[in-house]
């Protein structure tokens, strides 16, 4: 039994007087010892400071009021009370401003949804955006879109905040001085019009213009270069083709720092042509991930999670689930989902992949160099499993791996018969972007570029360091930079143009499989921004608006009679029918692949790996406060990146968390603070890109450490032979990891599939379910709708989408790095991440934790003003206007899910930042407690709607909470538990269902389905 029962046994167990308890871990609960779970190294090693920390729910609360400021504070308070008294005497006059004329489809007070699409890394995701009276406020996935299927990622959710970012570029700037689109148009007409000539500076007088226009080389576009991010817009491509045809001397270069260079080169190597693999995780029984965080940041779409989690839903012991093997250096959320995870340096992956190929009989024995016998055993078991499930298995490779490894994976998939089953191929026009970028840098340095037009992107910050784009741009006579925010590149440009946000302008965008969505705006540009297509149109001398560009392009694609109808349907559905690419057969060339593999250098010395940031992606969302404050899924760091090391590597170098180290490779050095990551590969450092922005808005400037200076064109992802040096300085990192520990009780329950089949009741056993009796008269919850939630830990990936969705839906403030360090983060839903096993190589689980809506809520009985009380539908209501801020409720909450507004976090918000607020939810002020409400505004809205339609019953699935709606894993299910046929009631009937801390008789309405791992008996 004890090996089945996996309990959270956090340090400092339940005994009273635990402040003096020095033991390293106590297994509590009802069983002697299960897996030992722990949340952080500090917690595990029991610093006394940590114990102190734990005992104070909101540490250091009084720190802001030292004696000096306390007196000032009292004075201010007296003054403000006086003023409050005065204002109360006269009633404020409030105006009602109706429309002058009615707006089609708009009913004031009711939200409207529009289909649109957002691109990230050249891949579009279809979205539905909610607008309140013309103001977009919330983003959801588009159920009709093949790469959303109703889900949206944290980046999509947070993109609404970037729309209202007051730090966006607000006007056209010419050499830093205010200018206008008209002036730019005049400049463009002279610079790119006919006849034209490349000019070092725009002439200031008519005479100068006339002189300049005399040159015979004007019409060719010689010396004109365009630099953009990956273009995935058909209408922009058409426009580009026209401009390049008109100016044949011009060139267009695409660059993204997180591009798929190696994957594309790998496909080219394997198949001799550029193919894109599309993975069908829902068909795979066994998946091997080689350094691929395909459930996380290595996948620009959420559907990998959708498909994968489909195979993790186990309703009964007769059900099967897939099995995931992950070999990786850094601990990713994909690694946390793994049934078997192997920590290995990124530069060691090629050898591992070869060993897989050797066991499968593809590669000759002589090639393999995997000397570690434990690893060989692991690989042998994995390879056998792959083979056993041939046709139903899948090998995926991450973007950090060299092209040859990608090619090898294609070969293995082909040999196993997976191609066409679990992986299919489409042709792609994409090519590796780096060669063209290198050529551009060389041309600039040779003085061949007169005008550089940058349409999005930030190359002076994120291009490979050896190309030194910051210096190169200075050499270009005229640089035009289109961007949403002031950035490191725009700062160097002569012309700085405000770019329209995707919710402000028309466009179109291809998803990974080629499916096109029309990008529909929801609001006029707030800061006169224009799209790249519009700027290009200006340059082409057409000056057309985005709507015309996109509409004309698409109307021309359809037969005349049906075109208008097809256009309207595409807008409505958010998908242009019939645009998905055709699948093509693919046959890899094994010999070529082996030859390329032979050339790969072996792993040697210390390596440095780069990976995308869960907050800033490649740096572009650095000024997004929601993303900055969202804890990294694994490290739980906020507002920072860090150099992640394994405990052993840190120990050997004498490093601890927060020590600043200098990382050097190839003669370049950057500094970053250390964060010890359990389960990280030894002799390896992982550090997130996209931090340490210098020129960006006020939110992101200075957050984190920039490691792009280490990244060169020769080694974009992994640096070999690196070194690290302790600088002796330390740096303060803010983490949410150690907040709200669960004190050694069985919070997360988990078993292997095998154990579950033997004992399906394993999860519900340790409840104890002691009947403590009722202190108050029993309330009957058997009538009407009774809201409840079930969260399947088996399909929760820990991707943060729910955290961001909740933040957007419920007007949750950001508090800043310093406040997070004090334990004052405000997220209503948090993702607890626990480790179990040895700290060198633990397993990890994540658990979403929000208000459990206890039927016997401990918070309610201690509120002196009845600001929190129960609703007849089982909700733990919170009336903000009644709350006086005693914080008794938070103190009495065993789940630690209540959040207190220590400061007025919404104070001083500039226009238009306030426009992001959801009008259906109160914006809380200082001194008020808040917490998850099961999105009560959505419940009430649907109830009201139902009543207006003359029915009382709410259909199952009619109400979706914000977290549920966006969850790509479909792990969160909300509904009426009184309806035995509702999905939530069905889930709660499952044997894996358990409540957290039910021994306290809290009777939580949120319950969890225990996690299962499909362990391979050979490796168990």
């Amino acid at each position, binding site marked *: 039994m004890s090996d089945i029962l996996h309990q959270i046994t956090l340090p400092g167990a339940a005994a009273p007087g635990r402040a003096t308890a020095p033991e390293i871990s106590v297994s509590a609960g009802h069983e002697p010892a299960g897996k030992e779970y722990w949340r952080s190294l500090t917690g595990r090693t029991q610093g006394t400071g940590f114990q102190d920390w734990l005992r104070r729910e909101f540490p250091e609360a009084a720190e802001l009021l030292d004696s000096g400021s306390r007196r000032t504070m009292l004075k201010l308070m007296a003054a403000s009370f006086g003023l409050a008294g005065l204002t*109360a005497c006269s009633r404020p006059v*409030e105006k009602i401003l109706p429309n002058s*004329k009615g707006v089609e489809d708009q009913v004031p007070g009711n939200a409207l949804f529009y289909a649109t699409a957002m691109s990230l890394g050249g891949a579009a995701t279809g979205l539905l955006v909610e607008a309140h009276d013309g103001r977009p406020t919330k983003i959801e996935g588009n159920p009709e879109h093949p790469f959303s299927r109703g889900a949206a990622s944290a980046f999509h959710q947070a993109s609404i905040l970037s729309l209202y970012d007051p730090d966006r570029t607000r006007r056209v700037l010419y050499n830093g001085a205010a200018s206008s689109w008209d002036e730019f148009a005049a400049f463009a007409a002279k610079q790119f019009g006919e006849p034209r000539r490349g000019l070092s500076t725009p002439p200031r007088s008519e005479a100068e213009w006339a002189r300049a226009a005399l040159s015979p080389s004007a019409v060719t576009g010689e010396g004109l270069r365009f630099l953009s991010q990956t273009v995935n817009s058909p209408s922009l491509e058409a426009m580009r083709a026209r401009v390049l045809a008109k100016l044949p001397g011009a060139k267009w270069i695409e660059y993204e720092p997180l591009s798929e260079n190696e994957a594309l080169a790998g496909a080219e190597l394997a198949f001799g042509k550029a193919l894109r693999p599309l993975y069908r995780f829902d068909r795979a029984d066994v998946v091997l991930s080689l350094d691929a965080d395909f459930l996380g940041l290595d996948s620009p779409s959420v559907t990998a999670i959708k498909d994968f989690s489909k195979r993790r839903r186990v309703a009964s012991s007769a059900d099967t689930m897939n099995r995931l093997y992950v070999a990786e250096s850094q601990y990713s959320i994909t690694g946390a989902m793994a049934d078997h995870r192997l920590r290995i340096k990124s530069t060691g992956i090629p050898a591992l992949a070869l060993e897989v190929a050797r066991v499968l009989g593809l590669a000759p024995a002589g090639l393999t160099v995997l000397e570690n016998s434990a690893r060989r055993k692991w690989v042998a078991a994995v390879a056998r499993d792959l083979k056993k499930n041939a046709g139903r298995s899948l090998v995926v490779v991450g973007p950090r791996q060299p092209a040859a490894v990608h090619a090898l994976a294609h070969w293995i998939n082909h040999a196993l018969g997976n191609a066409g089953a679990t992986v299919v191929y489409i042709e792609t026009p994409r090519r590796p972007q780096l060669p063209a970028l290198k050529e551009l840098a060389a041309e600039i340095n040779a003085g061949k570029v007169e005008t550089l037009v940058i349409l999005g992107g930030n190359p002076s910050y994120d291009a490979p360091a050896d190309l030194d784009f910051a210096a190169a741009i200075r050499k270009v006579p005229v640089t035009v930079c289109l961007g949403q925010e002031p950035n490191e590149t725009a700062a160097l440009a002569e012309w700085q143009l405000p770019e329209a946000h995707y919710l402000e302008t028309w466009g179109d965008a291809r998803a990974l499989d080629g499916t096109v969505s029309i990008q529909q705006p929801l609001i006029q540009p707030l800061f006169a921004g224009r799209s790249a297509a519009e700027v290009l149109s200006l340059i082409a001398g057409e000056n057309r608006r985005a709507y015309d560009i996109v509409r004309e392009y698409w109307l021309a694609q359809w037969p005349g009679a049906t075109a208008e109808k097809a256009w309207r349907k595409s807008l409505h559905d958010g998908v242009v029918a019939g645009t998905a690419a055709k699948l093509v057969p693919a046959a890899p060339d094994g010999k070529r692949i082996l030859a390329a593999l032979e050339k790969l250098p072996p792993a040697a010395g210390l390596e440095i790996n780069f990976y995308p940031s869960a907050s800033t992606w490649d740096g572009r969302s650095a000024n997004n406060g929601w993303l900055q404050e969202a804890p990294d899924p694994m490290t739980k760091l906020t507002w920072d990146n860090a150099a992640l090391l394994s405990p052993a590597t840190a120990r050997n170098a004498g490093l601890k968390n927060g020590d600043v180290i200098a990382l050097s490779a190839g003669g370049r050095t950057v500094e970053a603070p250390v964060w010890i990551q359990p389960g990280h590969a030894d002799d390896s450092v992982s550090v997130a890109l996209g931090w340490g922005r210098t020129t960006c808005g006020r939110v992101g400037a200075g957050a984190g450490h920039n490691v792009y200076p280490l990244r060169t064109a020769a080694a974009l992802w992994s640096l070999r032979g690196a070194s690290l040096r302790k600088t002796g300085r330390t740096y303060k990192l803010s983490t949410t990891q150690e907040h709200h520990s669960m004190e050694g009780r069985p919070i997360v329950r988990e078993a292997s599939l095998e154990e579950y089949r033997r004992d399906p009741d394993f999860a519900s056993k340790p409840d104890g379910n002691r009947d403590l009796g009722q202190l108050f008269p029993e309330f009957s919850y058997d009538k009407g709708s009774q809201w409840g939630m079930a969260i399947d830990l088996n399909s929760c990936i820990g991707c943060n989408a729910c955290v961001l969705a909740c933040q957007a839906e419920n007007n949750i403030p950001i508090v800043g790095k310093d406040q997070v360090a004090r334990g004052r983060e405000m997220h209503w839903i948090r993702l607890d991440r626990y480790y179990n096993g040895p700290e060198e190589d633990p397993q990890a689980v994540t658990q979403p934790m929000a208000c459990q809506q206890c039927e016997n809520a401990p918070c309610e009985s201690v509120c002196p003003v009845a600001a929190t009380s129960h609703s007849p539908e089982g909700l733990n209501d919170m*009336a903000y206007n009644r709350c006086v801020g005693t914080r008794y409720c938070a103190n009495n909450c065993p789940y630690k899910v209540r959040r207190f507004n220590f400061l007025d976090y919404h104070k001083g918000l500039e226009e238009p930042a306030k426009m992001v607020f959801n009008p259906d*939810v*109160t914006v809380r002020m200082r001194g008020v407690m808040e917490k998850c409400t099961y999105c009560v505004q959505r419940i009430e809205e649907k109830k009201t709607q139902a*009543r*207006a339609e003359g029915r009382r019953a709410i259909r199952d699935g009619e109400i979706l909470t914000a977290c549920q709606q966006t969850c790509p894993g479909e792990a969160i299910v909300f509904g009426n538990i009184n309806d035995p046929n509702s999905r939530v009631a069905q889930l709660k009937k499952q044997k894996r269902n358990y409540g957290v801390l039910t021994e306290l008789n809290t009777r939580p309405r949120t319950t969890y389905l225990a996690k299962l791992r499909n362990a391979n008996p050979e490796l168990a």
Partner: protein
Amino acid sequence: MHSIISKSTDRKIRIAGSAILLLALAAVTLTAYRFYPDRAETGYQPVQPVPYSHKLHAGDLGIDCRYCHSTVEVSNVAVVPAAETCMNCHARVKTDSPLLQPVRDSYASGRPVEWVRVHRLPDYVYFSHRAHLAAGVSCVSCHGRIDQMAEVKQVKPLTMAWCLECHRDPAPNIRPRELVTKLDWKPEGDPAALGRELIAKNDIHPPTNCSGCHR
């Protein structure tokens, strides 16, 4: 023992003290009376940019409330009509009335007429017109006899206690749904009896918990 304060001084202090106390008490009582929520808000009758008469339009001419407040059954808000709605008639009726100039200006310029809100709830209250109409609560229950007002005035206190009174016992205010905008309608017999009948028939049970109104 010689007392520090003489008898006469003592008396003066007593009188002065009592007077101050009485005055303070009177001040508090008066202030409380004046600003007691039930009174503080009722009677509010601001001057509107256009002296629109509900008495004329809704009362004498008998235009249904929903002609102008068109979203009241489908949205939480009842909307003040767009200038366009006014112009439906006033493009032909009273086309040169100077009183209607702001409406014509709004229609021509696209800028809104700045009406002054009369019935105001705090920001943390989420009131739904749609829900109340669906239950059969008439306009008159909260707004009074608007059809008799030349200028709109707040006649009900709109306080939480007042709301709860009805939420706890809605029967006197429930009528058939199709009659909610008939402000002069009175049921035959006991209104509460009819209300109780409708409550049972339509399964009406207004919320009295916090999240019913506060989110």
